[in-house]
């Protein structure tokens, strides 16, 4: 092997040691700079190739996702990550994993992302949805909460509202109605005062069975636009459910006179059940439904015998209801009477069973109340009115139980009976 050529000439090394060191320093600097420039050029060339490859794979991954090929998307996006390791690509990959049904991997991926960004609202939301798929409700609810209070890019208030709505629907699905209501109330309280939101929240409250809050939301919509068709119709329905028949009648009648509103699709309303009833029906059927409901409300006003009514009106309504209830009872007993012709009802009871006993008991009560069934008696005796009223309720309830579903006025009286049992 030949001896190494010294960097510094030997003669120079002996004569000028300081110059020698300087020359060594300069030589090494020059070498470093030259090598740095070469490396930089190589690196830039390499990076541009990597970037191009990364973008190609990301685009391929997105295309595969849109084509419902999540497994291919996962492969492409994994490859993209080796060339461009950034958060958007990682999120894309995690979403592809979730779409491919690889829930456990997707969860682990999002958990890893969340570890580095624990306050990210989007990541927590994705985790919540994955936990829902994995039937882990406590973790899902926790993640929803973290998402609501997390950081969001863009319109954070809108995103948080959307998450609250999603959470409330999930809570309702889990049977946690009170918690669902709380979320809806919070979201409604923070939402802008617009008709669209009022109607949306009304529908959401209805979906969880909170008709009172739903009515409140619909009335808020009507405060902003008293002639809004959706507001009138839904408020009318809600009032009807709550037993406020006068309000229901006026609202539903007003809805029949209003023009249906063509609303642009609001992002929040995508997939919402708010307008399920309305949107599911064609306009003609919808209109007929409202008309029927209004007619029922009107008839209920006529049949109502609550204590809120003036005395004379109540008496008249009670007498009318009595006639309807007795006719119902007679019709209910008729099959038994015809089959046991010639026998006393009591003997018929002994031979037919328990429900006949109940019906016969009602019959006996009507016979006992017969002397009171006149205007003069009822007008003077409030307790008699209460007895008659209860007898009407019991008759309609009993006949519905033993003789099939009530129809017509009997059905309306049954509704009044239900209202009296559920409402204070």
């Amino acid at each position, binding site marked *: 092997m030949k001896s190494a050529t010294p960097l510094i000439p030997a003669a120079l090394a002996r004569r000028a040691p300081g110059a020698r060191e300087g020359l*060594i320093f300069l030589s*090494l600097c020059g070498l470093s700079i030259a090598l740095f420039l070469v490396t930089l050029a190589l690196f830039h060339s390499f990076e541009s190739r990597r970037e191009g490859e990364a973008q190609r794979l990301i685009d391929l991954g997105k295309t595969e996702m849109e084509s419902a090929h999540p497994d291919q998307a996962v492969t492409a996006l994994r490859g993209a990550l080796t060339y461009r390791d950034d958060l958007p690509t990682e999120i894309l990959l995690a979403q592809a994993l979730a779409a491919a049904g690889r829930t456990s991997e997707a969860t682990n991926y999002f958990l890893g992302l969340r570890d580095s960004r624990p306050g990210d609202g989007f990541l927590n939301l994705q985790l919540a949805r994955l936990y829902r798929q994995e039937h882990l409700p406590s973790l899902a609810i926790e993640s929803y909460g973290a998402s609501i209070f997390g950081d969001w890019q863009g319109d954070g208030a809108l995103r948080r509202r959307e998450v609250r709505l999603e959470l409330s629907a999930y809570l309702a699905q889990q049977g946690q109605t009170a918690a669902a209501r709380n979320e809806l109330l919070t979201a409604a309280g923070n939402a802008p005062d617009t008709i669209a939101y009022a109607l949306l929240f009304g529908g959401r409250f209805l979906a969880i069975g909170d008709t009172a809050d739903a009515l409140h939301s619909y009335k808020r919509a009507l405060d902003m636009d008293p002639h809004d068709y959706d507001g009138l119709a839904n408020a009318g329905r809600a009032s009807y459910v709550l037993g406020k028949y006068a309000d229901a009648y006026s609202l539903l009648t007003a809805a029949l006179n209003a023009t249906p509103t063509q609303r642009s699709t609001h992002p929040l309303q995508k997939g919402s059940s708010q307008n399920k009833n309305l949107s599911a029906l064609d306009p003609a059927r919808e209109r007929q439904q409202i008309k029927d409901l209004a007619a029922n409300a009107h008839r209920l006003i006529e049949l109502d015998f609550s204590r809120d009514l003036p005395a004379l009106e109540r008496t008249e309504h009670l007498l009318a209801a009595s006639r309807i209830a007795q006719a119902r009872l007679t019709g209910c007993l008729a099959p038994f009477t015809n089959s046991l012709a010639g026998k006393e009802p009591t003997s018929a009871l002994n031979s037919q069973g328990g429900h006949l006993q109940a019906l016969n008991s009602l019959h006996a009560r009507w016979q006992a109340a017969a002397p009171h069934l006149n205007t003069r008696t009822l007008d003077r005796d409030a307790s008699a009115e209460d007895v008659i009223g209860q007898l009407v309720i019991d008759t309609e309830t009993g006949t519905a139980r033993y003789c099939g579903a009530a129809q017509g006025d009997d059905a309306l009286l049954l509704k009044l009976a239900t209202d009296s049992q559920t409402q204070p």
Partner: protein
Amino acid sequence: METQNAATQTIAGTQADANATGIAPAAEERLFLLISIFIGIIGGLLVVCFRIAIEWLSLLLQGPAPAPHHVRLLLAPSIAGIFIAIIARYVFPMVRGSGVNQTKAALYIHNGYISSRTMIGKFLLSSLAIGSGHSLGPEDPSLQIGAGVASLIGRRIGLSRERLRLFAPVGAAAGLAAAFNAPISAILFVIEEVIGQWTSAVLGSIVLSAVSAVVVARWFWGGQPMFRIPAVNLRDPRELLAYAVLGLVGGTASLLFAKALGWLRPVLRRQPGWAQLLQPAMAGLLVGAIGYFGLPQVMGAGYSTIDQAMHGQFVLKVLLLLALFKIIATTLSFSSGTPGGMFAPTLFIGAMLGTSVGVFEKLFFPSLTGSLGSYALVGMGVLFAAFLRAPLTSVFMVLEVSGNYSIILPVILANTIAYLISRALQPIPIFELLTHQDGLYLPSMEEQRDEIELRFEDALHPALVPILSGKDTLRNTRDLLKQIHDSEAEETRPPYPKTGYLVLCSDSLWYAAKPDEVESILAQEGTAGEQSLESKLGPDRTPMIFPDQPLSSALPYFGRWPMLPVLNRAIRGALEGVLTLDDVLKRYQSSMPGSES
């Protein structure tokens, strides 16, 4: 044979260079630190180029997104293997192996010499091997490339042989630090595995070069490690049991890996020359087959797979399969003589095993188990400690990469268990095993760490020689010595050894006088009878040595002194005992295994 010829020529060449340029030692001192920085910068740049080359080749040969049933997974490593075998045989004969042992050989045998040809060959062939899919890592070759840069620069500027030898680990640390993006781990590994010890002089240079290399590498690649580290945590102290299990698993796996390498490599090397030319290609074909039929993750270094494992992207069965087939693939690639390293495969296997233990724990003890990333990280440290036998480096590597000290307890626990298993069942570390297979006998760093350094206190004995006072007159001294001789003659006391005399001087220091030295002074009594003894002895004093000092440090003094008084550190001049050359030699002899004490 090639190694020995190169060594002989190297020594001659180096000596000639040193004589020719003749840099003064003082100038070398000044240059040493400065050049260390440049070694770090240049080594870092070369390692960046090395990594670029690997990734370019990987993109070209394996494709952007390797997946099972891609034919190029079979073709790329096998065709590259043919090319590598031919080039390595006829152009770059010294490039086989990982690079760590070759650097140690350069240090201990060739006075720090690594040829430029070897460096270039290592760069080209390792990048081709790893880029084509062989299951090897880039760190070990980077270590050798860095050492080669240091050797080249050292030779060019005409450093002395002693400095040139020291430059190899300086360059090695630079190369490894740039490849790993972890300067502390690189420094520790070089100290722990390459040079085995450190002095303040070389440590400063190693640190400077490693830091310079990392600064350069991070300028290009950024500060993030090769794989993303998730949050690591120790959720419950009972989790340490799980990490203990990981230590057991890792220790067993490292044993399996070492046994496989230890068996296959000599088998392949015993084959005829024409068969050895085909071995890299066959290894490439088999590794490619593993990738083709379902596990392309085992090909190449595997950092992206480590990243995926850390983020829980694999189920338990896949993790175990990956660990097993990575052991097989790396054994094939390395044993066939394909140049490339074992760091990355070791980390890969450790990460898979660690994550699998974590997944298992999560299934049965979900409330006790922390993140899978913690297990993967500790697993990497475990294999590093047990297989590469670098326990200190493995602990700091995990800490450096994770940046989280809460992981230190599990790391230490798991590493210790794995290391002990590995040592008990595989006494010879893997690097040492490979050097023995190559016919070299390099110092074993592990044995050096285990050696007990002897100290003065291990060899000294009470002072049995006459102790004289330097302030005494010569007449009194002679009278004292006559009394001693008379009592010896009358056998009223045993005779003193004829080693000499110890003289306590007035300055509380000692003088160890030879017998004839004192006798010749006393023979000159006459007009000098009233002078003090120490005035005739002269100004020299025996060196102050203390019981805790290394025994070997006494040897230079016995040329001048017949014995050495060992002093007490707390009380100036107080004697702990005496040490002679005979005592030192006997103590060293008694410390040899099998010797009679």
